[in-house]
């Protein structure tokens, strides 16, 4: 029980340390998305001074079948969060690379180690900040953005004499959208756990520039492997560490990272909300063997990070 309370305090500590990255960045990007929307609407009103086309378009939208409306509204909202989540991933990667290094550099590790907190709990708190705390804060900003975007759309709907509740808010299926995103963020964190673990591991022993070391080692290995394949008659090895890591970073379950199975060819791809808005789609990632291999590697790397953290002092 007290371990949980300690973890919570330590995670709040991380937010106190990086309020710009964890709180103001997602709010700022949300604000940018809203600003961009407003600019487009203002520009549109210059061309459509009587608002005739806009009102027409709204009414046409209102006449669409319900599934179509759901797809449009929730799909637009889902896609609008893309930028926020891409930036979040970058922030998490940089955060983890510095998380066990910065306090060694500025010597405040001597203060943190004077508290009755084990190194295991310390490392775990950094990992949970990356996997839960930061995604929760970014999701909060996304939810705010969604609400503001819907409010803007509602004012247009009122102008076109359309009921915004039945035609916008209800089709947006907000509770479902947000809970699928929350679940997606958690599954995404599990999927990326080996990468997170690798960064923590480098952060806990690197004498300097942990992020560069974390990139240089896999990059160097895959280049070495690639060069070897040049010598050995262009037989490219199947497994290339750098490519595997990049592929893992680039694929996932969130907008921008959604893997669409094109097994039957592009023609048969049905654009439906099942592509992004289904719990089972998100959870199916848990059944992939790559997921479990990744978790195993992550566990080893995290143990390594704790091992080096135990020995770490200010030098």
């Amino acid at each position, binding site marked *: 029980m007290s371990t949980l309370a300690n973890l919570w305090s330590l995670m709040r500590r991380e937010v106190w340390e990086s309020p710009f990255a964890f709180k103001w960045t997602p709010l700022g990007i949300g604000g940018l998305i809203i600003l961009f929307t407003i600019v487009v609407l203002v520009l549109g009103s210059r061309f459509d001074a009587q608002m005739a086309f806009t009102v027409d378009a709204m009414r046409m939208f209102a006449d669409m079948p319900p599934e179509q409306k759901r797809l449009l509204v929730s799909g637009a909202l889902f896609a609008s969060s893309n930028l926020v989540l891409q930036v979040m991933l970058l922030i998490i990667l940089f955060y983890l690379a510095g998380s066990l290094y910065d306090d060694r550099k500025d010597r*405040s590790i001597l203060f943190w180690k004077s508290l*009755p907190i084990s*190194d295991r709990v310390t490392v775990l708190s950094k990992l949970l900040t990356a996997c839960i705390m930061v995604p929760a804060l970014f999701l909060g900003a996304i939810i705010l953005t969604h609400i503001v975007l819907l409010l803007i759309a509602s004012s247009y709907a009122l102008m076109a004499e359309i009921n915004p509740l039945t035609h916008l808010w209800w089709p947006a299926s907000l509770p479902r959208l947000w809970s699928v995103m929350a679940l997606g963020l958690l599954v995404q964190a599990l999927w990326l756990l080996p990468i997170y673990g690798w960064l923590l591991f480098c952060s806990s022993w690197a004498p300097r520039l942990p992020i560069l070391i974390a990139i240089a080692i896999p990059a160097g290995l895959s280049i070495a492997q690639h060069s070897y394949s040049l010598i050995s008659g262009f037989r490219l090895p199947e497994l290339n560490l750098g490519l595997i890591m990049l592929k893992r970073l680039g694929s996932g379950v969130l907008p921008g990272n959604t893997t669409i199975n094109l097994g039957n060819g592009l023609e048969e791809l049905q654009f439906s909300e099942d592509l992004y808005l289904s719990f089972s789609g998100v959870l199916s990632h848990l059944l992939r063997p790559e997921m479990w291999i990744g978790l195993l590697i992550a566990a080893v790397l995290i143990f390594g990070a704790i091992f080096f953290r135990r020995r770490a002092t200010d030098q």
Partner: protein
Amino acid sequence: MNAIIKARGLRRSFGQVHALDGIDLDIPSGRIVGLIGPNGAGKTTALKAILGLSSYQGELSVLGLDPARQRDQLMQDVCFIADVAVLPRWARVHQIIDLTERLHPNFSRKQCLHYLEATRIRPQARIRTLSKGMVVQLHLALVMAIDARLLVLDEPTLGLDILFRKRFYSNLLNEYFDEERTIVITTHQVEEVEHILTDLVFIKDGQLVLNQSMEAIHERYTEVMVRPDQVEQARALAPLHERVLFGRHILLFDEPDREKLASLGEIHRPSVADLFVGLMGDNA
């Protein structure tokens, strides 16, 4: 006697250099121990081993725990201030008090705020903006508000003015120290801690040169100020060290015949600084 710190054959090497070269040490509770030595003698290395911040060879137990493996448990009853301000620079004063309160079961926020009242430190201030003296004041307020059994201070007053240093040690002695507690201090400003120490440990090249209570040291060492014509007589008694002050020769003796010395000149109790020079050598 319940030993707070017990070390047997404590060693730590960095390559060819033996920072600690087999130290045996017993520190009972209710003492204020000064760990004194020249730069690079192994003071900080010894303290780091005691605090579970570095690995070591040999036996070491602090409050009955193994510091290298049970640091988190140990830190419930041990506090330390390292030789530089190590509070996180990004934090605000109230955040650091909050965190310590949440993470340390023996911390009293009331006590801490009481100590801070006497300073100009504001709760909203960022540690980055505080002066060096204020950061030490804050750290000390945090540490003194923790009900700990062992307090380790590694050069706590480095770079602070003399008024602050005086107040620091008087606070420590009057408001914090009691028989249940033990304090270990390292410092170069030996004159300032001399009057509060109960025990003195000299360390040089990773080895203990002296390890005794202040009473025993006062019994054992004597200084005599000799007139120039009797210097040869005094030198015949095998002094540990000799220095010249205003034309008078001052000689330091280990367990001398006091009556004989008294006939040679004025007898003094040597200060810690004089002992340090006498035992460690001028070129230490």
